[in-house]
């Protein structure tokens, strides 16, 4: 009887803990900040396509639609609106519509609707360029777009919020269970990304030897700031390489311990900030930092962002 009762208690406790973890309503500040930043990145990423739209997305660009479909295995579930439209004017219409959607998502206008449209459009672009021109930025963009659909991403730091204030709403943005669920999904998705990124690096001889950082900074095509002075600092190269791989492998544990979380967050800023500064991957580096912000408590976000957001809101509402 004792064992059965203990097991029953364990299951009940685990179910309660699971419920609290996923469904406790939370202040949507962190979620809203991620909408603002990820929406900005989605807008910028797609704005840049405008500079060579037909070459990358047109039916007869660098890689034809037929070729891409063939590379993707002709699967029905790999879909893109750009597989079905051929006329340049139609591609431009979709593109301009997408830019409007991503801009609205960034500023938080009709947030719930633009989040859904943003996801569909982000996947459409990404599938058209995979393989070919895709990289980690597109994976992160689509991940954000997916989870932004799930909660009230425009509850704070948005034109939707300012509109509600202008309409006379005085209540604070309510705590939201779906915002918590979306943030949890971003957090766990990020843990899976880092785990497999670390496991893949374990197979690399240069990661094992502690020299991989050198081969990253010695890559001329990636280089945006010269870091070849590291040639004189083999211990620093080794240390940074080993820290990177251990941090990625143990990211999940480091992030869920409140004492190691700030350290882990700072490592994320240094690693991804380094990629942005020295390897020219500013967009990818920033996007990974944005994803790490999902671990920042809403109260901290409000302490950082509310003063600025309040000033912007005052300007837009005429001080009301």
């Amino acid at each position, binding site marked *: 009887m004792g064992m059965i009762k203990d097991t029953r208690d364990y299951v009940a406790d685990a179910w309660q803990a699971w419920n609290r973890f*996923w*469904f406790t309503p939370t202040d949507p500040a962190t979620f809203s900040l991620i909408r603002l930043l990820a929406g900005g990145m989605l807008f910028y990423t797609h704005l840049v396509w405008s500079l*060579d739209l037909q070459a990358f997305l047109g039916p007869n660009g660098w890689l034809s639609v037929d070729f891409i479909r063939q590379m993707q295995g002709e699967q029905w579930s790999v879909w893109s609106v750009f597989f079905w439209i051929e006329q340049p004017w139609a591609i431009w219409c979709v593109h301009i519509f997408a830019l409007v959607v991503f801009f609205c998502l960034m500023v938080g206008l009709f947030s719930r609707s633009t989040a859904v449209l943003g996801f569909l459009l982000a996947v459409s672009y990404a599938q058209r360029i995979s393989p070919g021109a*895709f990289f980690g930025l597109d994976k992160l963009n689509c991940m954000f777009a997916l989870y932004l659909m799930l909660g009230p991403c425009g509850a704070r730091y948005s034109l939707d919020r300012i509109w509600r204030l202008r309409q006379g709403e005085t209540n604070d943005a309510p705590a939201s269970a779906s915002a918590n669920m979306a943030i949890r999904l971003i957090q766990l998705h990020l843990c899976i990304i880092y785990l497999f990124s670390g496991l893949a690096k374990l197979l690399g001889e240069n990661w094992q030897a502690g020299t991989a950082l050198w081969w990253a900074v*010695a890559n*001329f*095509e990636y280089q945006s700031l010269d870091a070849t002075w590291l040639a004189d600092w083999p211990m620093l190269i080794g240390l940074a390489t080993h820290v990177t791989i251990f941090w990625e492998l143990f990211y999940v544990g480091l992030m869920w311990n409140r004492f190691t979380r700030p350290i882990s967050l700072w490592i994320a800023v240094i690693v991804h900030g380094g990629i942005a500064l020295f390897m020219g*991957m500013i967009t990818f580096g920033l996007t990974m930092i944005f994803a790490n912000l999902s671990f920042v408590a809403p109260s901290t976000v409000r302490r950082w962002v509310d003063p600025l957001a309040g000033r912007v809101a005052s300007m837009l509402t005429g001080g009301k």
Partner: protein
Amino acid sequence: MSKKRHENQPPGSGEPSKPDKIRPAKPKRPASGLPWNPALRGFLSLLIALHLLAVFAAPWNLSTNPALPPGFMMPVDANGRPQPVSRDHPALQQPVVPRALGRFFNHYLNLAYLNHGYQFFAPDPAGTHIIDFQVTKPDGTVVKGRFPDLKEQWPRLLYHRHMMLAEQTELMGSDSGQQYADHLARLHGGHCRMEWTVHLMLSPEEVKAGTALDDPKTYRVLATVESQVGNPNNAAGEMPIAIPGGTQ
């Protein structure tokens, strides 16, 4: 859990009570304080678990490789040199669990663009690929270019997209090079000749010895491709060769 089990023991059920050591039980937060009814939360929990399993299965499936059994005797050529086995060799053992999960979630992962391996700079950082092209128009004028090229492709993200075009040629095979050549021939109207080059990297010792990262000897042409606008029978040039590893 063991601590909680002691705390929750009913009074007078075996062990003598020690009131001075018993701490008040940690109050449980009632699940009823949560939004939505239990059935909806249960349904959402199922969806969350399936979604996370799918997100986990994608890189697991993509990053695992089949393995040969221990002690497998590799086939050898006439000179006794071991030969690689083909991907469909019957002795290869497939990682059945990630493969099964990958198949099960395949369409869901595709629909949401989640079918990725997340192998950033793995297994090892490698040299980048560059494509140089030259299009000769019917009037004899020549258009030359390269991608990626910082001078031509701006901002950095557009440069990076062009870098990926050159880089993923290796992933897509020689037909992709033909696609690029055809595109350039159509765009500029003429005959396109394209070179696919790998830019090898230098060791710390070579850099300390004064060799520049873009020293001409660090570039090695791997393949050439040609295309003529309006020619339906464009054929690939030399077939790409394996990319040499390590530094030179």
